[in-house]
């Protein structure tokens, strides 16, 4: 749907929206903008799901304590001068899944967070927390995946650490990688840089990783022809940044929480509306089918090799062409654009011709997947 064919009801038949409802909505938006506050006493899975609870925890506990200008944007990584620096913990279950394992995830995920800062990834660190009883052959497999992924991404794992915890105090193997890279200090990328009129792109079909891992857990007894999309995106970002110098506003890999979460972060940080078209969002049939079956929305399903890019509207075509010319971006599409109002909201024009909010994820509909 590229032109506005939605409203088919003659205006004279529309009754005025109740003033009372408007007022309530205003009140709610004010409530939403209030300072983050953790109400719970105990950590729940929701705090790790990447949605509202994660955000609240990060802002109220971590940002509050560590506050500094590099941390403040809460981006994929921190940038200081020419240095980009990031970290991620990987606790995926199962450790091995179609298309990848925790090892290449741990390399690609951190490479991608650097790439999203506009950086060229250079060095990785790797910290392993191993559970007593973990098969060393599995560890070798994971480490081999990491080495292969690092080679493929042109980065070196230069330092690391290993701890072993008692049986029952972990889930086989947790990996934490940190990465450093170099970045053009002139670059100004960030969730807060989107401007009304900008185009919003994704680099390929969404949600593959999240659904693949969910099914690989086996609890739902569902099989699907799916593999994780895990891949290093720094080549793709480099091509985009080279093609559209100064016209790229924001890059985010759509991991935990999916595309919906990334778009909400951009809408909130930039104080803009993001409007996307359901028909334009690429979703593989098997992802869509599984989501229908389980009552999940693919917009919230994690990708590990897809990104959202916000670019100046005039550069949209060039950006799209650049992304599509890269092997990891052949499925790129423009999924929507940035508007000025209502700030902080992501709106979806449905295939059905209606509109709805795409809000920040609450709770943990998808158990952890990255």
């Amino acid at each position: 749907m590229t032109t506005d064919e939605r409203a088919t009801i003659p205006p004279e038949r529309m009754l005025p929206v109740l003033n009372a409802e408007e007022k309530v909505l205003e009140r709610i938006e004010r409530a939403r903008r209030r300072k983050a506050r953790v109400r719970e006493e105990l950590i729940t899975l929701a705090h790790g799901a990447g949605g509202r609870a994660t955000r609240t925890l990060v802002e109220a506990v971590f940002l509050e304590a560590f506050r500094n200008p590099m941390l403040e944007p809460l981006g994929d990584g921190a940038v200081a001068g020419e240095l980009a620096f990031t970290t991620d913990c990987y606790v995926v279950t199962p450790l091995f899944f179609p298309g990848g394992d925790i090892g290449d995830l741990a390399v690609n995920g951190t490479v991608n967070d650097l790439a999203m800062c506009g950086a060229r990834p250079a060095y990785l660190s790797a910290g392993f927390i191993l559970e007593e009883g973990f098969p060393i052959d599995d560890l070798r497999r994971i480490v081999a995946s990491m080495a292969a992924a690092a080679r493929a991404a042109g980065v070196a794992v230069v330092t690391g650490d290993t701890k072993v915890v008692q049986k029952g105090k972990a889930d086989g193997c947790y990996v934490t990688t940190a990465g450093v890279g170099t970045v053009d200090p002139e670059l100004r990328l960030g969730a807060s840089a989107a401007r009304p009129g900008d185009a919003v792109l994704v680099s390929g079909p969404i949600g593959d990783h999240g659904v693949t891992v969910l099914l690989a857990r086996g609890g739902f007894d569902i099989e699907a022809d799916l593999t994780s999309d895990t891949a290093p995106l720094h080549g793709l970002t480099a091509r985009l940044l080279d093609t559209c110098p100064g016209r790229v506003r924001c890059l985010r890999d759509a991991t935990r929480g999916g595309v919906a979460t990334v778009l909400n972060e951009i809408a909130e940080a930039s104080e803009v509306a993001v409007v996307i078209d359901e028909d334009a969002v690429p979703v593989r049939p098997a992802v869509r089918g599984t989501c229908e079956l389980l009552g999940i929305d693919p917009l919230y399903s994690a990708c590990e090799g897809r990104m959202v890019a916000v670019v100046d509207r005039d550069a949209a075509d060039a950006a799209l062409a650049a992304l599509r010319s890269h092997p990891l971006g052949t499925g790129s599409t423009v999924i929507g654009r940035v508007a000025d109002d209502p700030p902080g909201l992501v709106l979806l024009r449905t295939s059905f011709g209606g509109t709805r909010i795409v809000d920040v994820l609450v709770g943990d509909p998808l158990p952890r997947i990255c």
Partner: protein
Amino acid sequence: MPADRPDLAQVDVSGVRRAVNIGLLEGEELAPGDWILIHVGFALSKIDEVEAKAALDFLESIGQAYEDEIAALRESMIEKG
């Protein structure tokens, strides 16, 4: 499907497969290619293709009529314009 579990059927939609319990469809003949309504792992109903076609035809007829109307409207506007 295991031969000893006649109450299970394998369903496949868009490359997504799951074994479904068809024990609630007693008396229904099920053949590969049939569509069924699935709820929490059980088949609740076999889809009636005749009814489905009739309903869809109705919806499409509405759609077609509307397209025709819109087209007519456009033409009349062009004529006017």
